[in-house]
């Protein structure tokens, strides 16, 4: 197990380097550069101004040299400073936006699991019944409805017509004078709509997945055998069948780790949430290379680690899988 782990970890390093090199080149291939946004179409900028920006950002150097300059900093875990006008360290920019993004994603992820798995199990158990059809339609409606449209309708109804929920943002104006409980309630009230809507939009995948996986398992012989032995149906479903049906869910969990730091641009924009999605989108539009690289690298690391974790946990959960050479 240990040698397997070490081998896998060592394998991650060249992979990560490859990812950074390809990303670095690709983002520099896009037309335009950050100096442009300060000086283009701005009559107040002298001709010197543009050159000054280009020099300041090392954009006059060949791209390979720029990559090595970046890499030299990166191996010391320094992502550099943002090219945007605030010039903040990249890591600080990311850390400012990470808590709210992770909070929303984790809350949504937990709710998705809580709602989607029972839905899938029930759909499989009563498959082809009215209930199955209703659930199917419900989750596909959630999947198919444009989220921004539904979001605006909900904001109008709950925020303007009923006036029971805040429309956007994360805090009220008087946030800092609230007590701890008040603060929690305030944040939950503000994030209720975005979380519920993103759960509604993502139920389909997991519930369908659980349903199919469960259907397969229910046809296995050991289920028949368990039934023949007179074990209660409830225990068969939730203990014997579900456990096996959920094995592949570990893979889904592993793959959702990098997603935890990502955010939806549309959602964050509509709900005025300063999260990672907006940061990434703005950085790309402004050609803020250090921030783009920072987010991509963190995403890449989390993906690689998530995969590794999923593989390891798979081995722990399923005794048939072993990693050591025999």
């Amino acid at each position: 197990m240990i040698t397997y782990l070490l081998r896998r970890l060592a394998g991650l390093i060249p992979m990560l380097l490859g990812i950074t090199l390809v990303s670095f080149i690709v983002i520099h291939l896009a037309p335009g550069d950050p100096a442009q946004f300060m000086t283009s179409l701005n009559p107040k900028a002298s001709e010197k101004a543009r050159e000054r920006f280009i020099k300041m950002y090392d954009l006059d150097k060949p791209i390979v040299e720029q990559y090595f300059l970046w890499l030299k900093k990166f191996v010391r875990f320094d992502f550099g400073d943002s090219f945007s006008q605030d010039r903040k360290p990249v890591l600080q920019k990311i850390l400012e936006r990470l808590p709210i993004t992770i909070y929303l994603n984790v809350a949504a992820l937990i709710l998705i699991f809580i709602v989607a798995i029972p839905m899938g199990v029930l759909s499989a158990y009563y498959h082809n019944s009215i209930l199955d059809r209703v659930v199917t339609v419900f989750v596909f409606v959630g999947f198919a409805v444009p989220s921004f449209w539904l979001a605006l309708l909900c904001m109008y109804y709950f925020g303007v017509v009923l006036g029971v929920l805040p429309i956007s943002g994360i805090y009220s104006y008087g946030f800092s004078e609230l007590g701890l409980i008040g603060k929690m309630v305030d944040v939950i009230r503000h994030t209720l709509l975005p979380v519920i809507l993103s759960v509604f939009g993502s139920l389909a995948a997991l519930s369908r997945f659980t349903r199919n996986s469960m259907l397969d398992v229910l046809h296995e012989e050991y289920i028949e055998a368990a039934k023949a032995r007179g074990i209660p149906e409830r225990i068969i479903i939730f203990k014997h069948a579900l456990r096996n049906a959920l094995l592949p869910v570990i893979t889904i969990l592993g793959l959702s780790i990098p997603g935890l730091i990502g955010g939806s641009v549309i959602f964050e924009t509509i709900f005025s949430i300063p999260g990672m999605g907006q940061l990434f989108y703005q950085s790309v539009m402004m050609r803020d290379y250090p921030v783009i690289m920072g987010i991509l690298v963190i995403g890449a690391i989390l993906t690689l680690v998530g995969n590794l974790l999923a593989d390891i946990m798979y081995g722990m959960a399923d005794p048939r899988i072993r990693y050591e050479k025999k």
Partner: protein
Amino acid sequence: MNWLHLLFLLVILSSCGGDSSNLEKDMGPVDVGEVSNSVDRDKLGDLVVEGSIGDASNLIPILASDSVSHSIASLVYNGLLKYNKNLELVGDLAEKWEIASDEVGGSIITFYLRKNVRWHDGKLFTADDVVFTYNVIVDDKTPTAYDGDFLQIDHIDKIDDYTVKVYYEKPYAPALSSWTMYMLPKHLLDDIEITSSNLQRSPIGTGAFKFKEWKNGESINLSFNSKYFEGRPLLNGYIYRIIPDSTTMFLELLSEKIDFMSMSPIQFSKQTDNRRFRKQFSKYTYLSNNYTYIAYNTKNSLFSDKRVRQALTYATPKDEIIQGVLFGLGTKATGPYKPDTLWHNKEVKTYPYDLAKAKELLRKAGFVDEDGDGILEKGKKEFKFTIITNQGNSTRAKVAEILQERWGQLGIKVEIRVLEWATFLNEYIDKRNFDAVLLAWSIPLEPDLFDVWHSSKCEGKNLNFICYQNSDVDHLIEKGRSTLDEKIRKDTYFKIQEILAEDQPYTFLYVPMSLVGLNKRFEGVKPAPAGIMHNIIKWHVKENNQKYHFIP
């Protein structure tokens, strides 16, 4: 995995209360500041919350080029001069100024500074700050996009603590307006690199509002400056809330969570046309500082004949565009100036919508449909071209579609390409690789046209990207920027507008209206050509209408 999630949740929930601003519930011990007369005392209080699409980037204004940073800066800082509500230059930190010429043909501006003005940290504002601001702008290490005007300065002298003399090698007309640039505090920036200063995040100025707090991507909070030299603002503070989506912002306005926003034409004309809205909000309109145009690449043989450009303008239904796209909330543009300013020439040649005239002009220029396919040709070459415009502005795409339809009726095949901004600039504008561009210019209050219309600005990445070259215009531009005599300048710019109207290098389309909705509880708001913000320090709310009872 689940315990980890929970731990995250706990950490996040508890960190939400991290930075606590000092909210003060009662007005008791707070210094309410100098109020000009005692009647005003019961008008004190409340806040105004403005919705803004974008966040600020940097609150040292010379380092930022976005409009949000500059509108915060306008509340926190002052320049030596400012534009008043009628868009005339008046003194701000400078009480008065004198213009003189020296014996070698240069010009000297003497600024007499206001005394007893204090920075928000209590230090006195003096001539040293003015000299410092100039030095830092022209410093090669300062990454600013506003150095152009200041590089014209030969040198600058401090005469005493409240007098500064600025020397220009030759008379430079835009000089005065460049001194609306916000002054920076020398004592806080002198020994450090400006790009590492924390004033970028928490500015110290001399303005009516003091900076309090900046929550990234959420809000920027300002509180009143009790020592402001024009008297303390009657409001207790100004909150800038960042709401990136304009529909969301509109919902926030309806639910009275924000007081004040700029609206789109459809919101202004259709969605707010009801009794409930009129009861809660006042609507204001004034002309914006920009015009939308279609520019023809004069290097393209299709457009080198001015009759072709005139024909295209005749075939441009400006009224239809303003009605259809702006719901009537705009004015026809005829040249590069704002119609309500003194530089605008009302008497220039106009091109009322007339397809027959347009056809006639095109025929004279040699474009006829010889093969009967509905598309004009000259020789073997078909009259077809592409209009490019930038993504993210649906108004422009709609205008392009109207033009495509109308010009199609003349037998011109028009294609439209909507491009991402960086690509648009880099691959098309900077490389002069386009037929016609649909875009807008902001209209600076200083009338100099050198950067956009002088033939020397045709090469490289300069702004005369259509390469308009007219030696008469060149002479007039040079004349206009080298005199400080307003009368001569006005005549000069009137003449330029006549030539531009004849040449039609651009089809000037429209100047849109700024459309503002403001909560009715604010009183003392006086709309003017400059908008409504010019007297923000006089805005007030009656005591029983006041909504927010804390000071940011």
